[in-house]
């Protein structure tokens, strides 16, 4: 079970969090013309990297904040955790 450092609450067990996928995906702006390709990339296509991955987790049984976690998908090592508005 992972041990995740919520930037708001501190180290908490994985069971308090829920996973939210790739944190680098950016939603196209509202009312902006986007091609089918761009939209499909946003909705469906995700990389499945072996190694470092910046991902979203929500501290669902804690402060309910969405946070960013840089994790190694192979070793589960967590390098850093960030608040929603922070970037690497």
């Amino acid at each position, binding site marked *: 079970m992972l041990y995740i450092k919520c930037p708001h609450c501190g180290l908490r067990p994985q069971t308090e969090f829920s996973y939210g996928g790739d944190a680098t995906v950016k939603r196209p702006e509202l009312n902006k013309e986007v091609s089918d390709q761009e939209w499909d990339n946003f909705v469906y296509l995700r990389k499945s990297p072996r190694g470092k991955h910046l991902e979203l987790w929500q501290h669902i049984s804690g402060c309910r904040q969405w946070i960013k976690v840089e994790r190694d998908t192979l070793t*589960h090592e967590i390098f850093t955790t960030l608040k*929603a508005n922070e970037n690497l």
Partner: protein
Amino acid sequence: MSENFRLEKGGLINRNKKISFTFNGKKYFGYEGDTLASALLANGVHLVGRSFKYHRPRGFFGAGVDEPYAIVQMNRNNEVDPNVRATEQELFEGLEAKSVNCWPNVNFDIGAINNFLNKFFPAGFYYKTFMWPKSFWYKIYEPIIRKAAGFGAASIKHDKERYEHKYEYCDLLIAGTGPSGLASAYAAAKNGAKIILAEDKSRYGGSLLTSEVTIGNQSGQDWAEQIISELKSMPNVIVKNRSQVFGYYDHNMLVMSERVSDHLPKTDKYTPKQRLWYIRAKEVVISSGSIERPLVFGNNDTPGVMLSSAAKEYLKVYGVLVGKKPIIFTNNDSGYETAIEFKKNGVDPIVLDTRKDANSEIIKEAKELNINIKFSYVVVAAKGYKKVNSADIAKISDDKKVISNIENIKCDCICVSGFWTPTIHLASQSGNKTKFNEEIDAFVPSHSKQKEVTLGSANGVFTLEETLKTSFEKGSELSKQITNKENKVPIPTVVEKKSSKYDKFWCVPLPEGKNYKRFLDFQNDVAVADIQLALREGYRSIEHVKRYTTLGMATDQGKTSNLNGLQLVSEVENKVVPQVGHTTFRPPYTPVSIGAIVGREVGKHAKPTRKSPMHHWHEKNNAVFVDAGVWLRPRYYKQGNENLFEASKREAKNVRQNVGVCDVTTLGKIDIKGPDAAEFLNRVYTNSWLKLPVGKARYGVMLREDGIVMDDGTTTRISENHYHMTTTTAQAANVLSHLEYYLQLVWPELNVNVVSSTEQWAGAAIAGPKSRDVLQKLFPDLDVSNEGLPFMGYMEGNLFGVYAKIFRISFSGELAYEVNVESDHGNFMWEKIMEIGKEFNIQAYGTEALSTLRIEMGHVAGSELDGRTIPYDNSLEGLVSKKKDFIGKRSLGKKAYVAANRQKIVGVVPLDKKTSIPEGSYIVKDPKAKLPNPKLGHVSASCWSVEYDNPFSLAIIKDGKNMIGQKLYALSPLRNKSIPVEIVSSHYVDPKGERVRS
């Protein structure tokens, strides 16, 4: 059988307390402090079971967790416990155990015929034999294998025992209380670190319990006892026996299984049988010791052949002789310790040492005691079927290839010592890259991935002096990093006997013309020939060899067999062992009971149960409840002998004719506040929200980004910047996370806050043509006329002194209102509604009637919003704004979503107006078409229409728009039904929606 093998004195058992127990129905005696194994051996019982594949007789091989044979089934406190290792089970008064894997009994086992048919059971026999013909698998092979396989039978009864989970955090977790565990724990404890020290046996001390050493001025055993009692008195130390750390998971999370009551005849009230500890440790010290390696020779699985260290443990800890005419077969000095113990207790052993010659303190001592030692000697084969009665021994050449001078000598046990294998399971589980140590021919931990260190013999260190030195130092160093304290403890001096070099020889060649089975894996009956066969057949990877031959699998996980298996593969393959590599060690290190894994989360405790504030009223009024997510909701209220169908029909009818009330507390509620709330809702919902006036509610549908409907519900503008959103019961949590996602990550510039208020409000839906009358009497001061409180209107009121929110919204399709009060007043509100509604014939209705009402109205719910449908499919396209952008809008233009024959919701009525259509039925054109019959869609919800008094269903079918009026079929192959139906509008009742506005 009744011969006594217990010594007059000695051992750590309590000879003042005699204990009676039964094994295979026969009564025996032992002492407090015995294990089932030691007590049976004291009674001369060696035959305890049959082997897995060939059903060969099985005795005891070890004295602890490594035991591959002695697995028994226990009856304790009227509960069956399968898969119990007799070497671990402590004796208690009245213990009942029996053998497994044999029928009709252990002495006469029909399955043993496999032993004589063993040509048919080579490596991979399951794969080869049972592959053909295919039809034989289910009928013949599988049932036979099922009957023959496994260790004991699990009970099919509910386990009444209690199992607990515990979470703990510590600076250092130390697994094992041998010298390295004790020393590192002691040093770390003195530095003030928070420590958990775990021992899997009942007694602390590990190898110190059986070795002849001096630490400081004490015997090893006394030293261990003193350290343990000091550690137990320290507030920063948790010391646990009967506790096996069996799993090493990510981020230094370890799991330990504590056998709290297994050693007692009965579990005390409120005490668990077992407790599972989830431990998050800053540092982990693995001091799990080592396990003696078997030597491989003919019939080496015969009862009476056992590890030399086990024989020594039975002698020194339990005062039990495993035999009175022992052969000690060894390739190192450890065997001599056992020989000397036998000799000291008046038994003459013969030592067969594979080495040509060896000299050390201990060999000298053995010689001085006149022990018969034969160098360059091996056991060729054990003789005897149910028990060893003699052995063929022989001289072995210097190159270990040729045996000569075979002779048969009498014996009653053969104690083998093939040197030691470090127990690296936990280190390996942690991700440690192990390395091969040539000197000891075994893998040891090397490069750590997590915060762990392995000490003592588990790390391949076999001298006490070095073990204590490194363990004291490491314990001090690790704890100092955490506590910043340093209280140096002096490292005691050690007196121990130095060992001479061991011989790497491990497998005795077969004599000319003999074909003895030489076992590698005792639990799975894997013999040398099986591995050779697997290699001949082309298996190369050790992982494949393992799976093909079952080497190292099953409950003992190859604790005694792994290395010899590797040696053999490397010999045949002409590779060195490190190239072959070892198979992956996975948790658990020892079997863990399912009960311990599940813990208290059984039955009703498997998930939380949420009840509305009106729950007690429902109970009193004969509600039959149904699980709705984690909520309990009344399904119907039973009157007299009514069944579900009759009751729900009555309740639904009463709503259509008079008035009903339904507990809607479980609906998700989200409070939304902030100056940008309207803009936010406008982006979340498919319809327009910017112009909703204060005091008005609106129905809305929200999508996922892929265009699929996520949820629906009404949201009400309470004040300028304050909205009250409702969600379906099932989606409440997901919708909140969804809203938080967009507010925190996508549109952080919006000034909006959301919070769940589901539990703050109790809700009652009052529905039916007479609902306004009830409402007026509940709120006599309010104008609740159609003008005063129109459809989708909202007002606040005073319900006999209680603040209430009143929404004119409807799920039933009738004139209806929802009244919310603070949860604490929920029951008060409910009782008032029932009291006032009496004169209007009010009746409470449950979820079944609620479903009926919404289905015949064509209102969609969870069975239509099933994660596969878009707004159009549910005839909700009118709510999709063309002007503004919102979540998921861009996806709605996808080709499949705008296809002319896109699926759409319809109504379905059976032609006979009688036959109910099972939910999940397929709608097809031709019920007799060739399979697979192309389906048009499926029936999502069914009810008995109370309006028309015939069955009615909703279905989502291809080109539903153009199917109205068609005669089709509803097929339910599961129920073997084919029902002719007509497709009608999904709005079966009041298609213009006049009632809700009346």
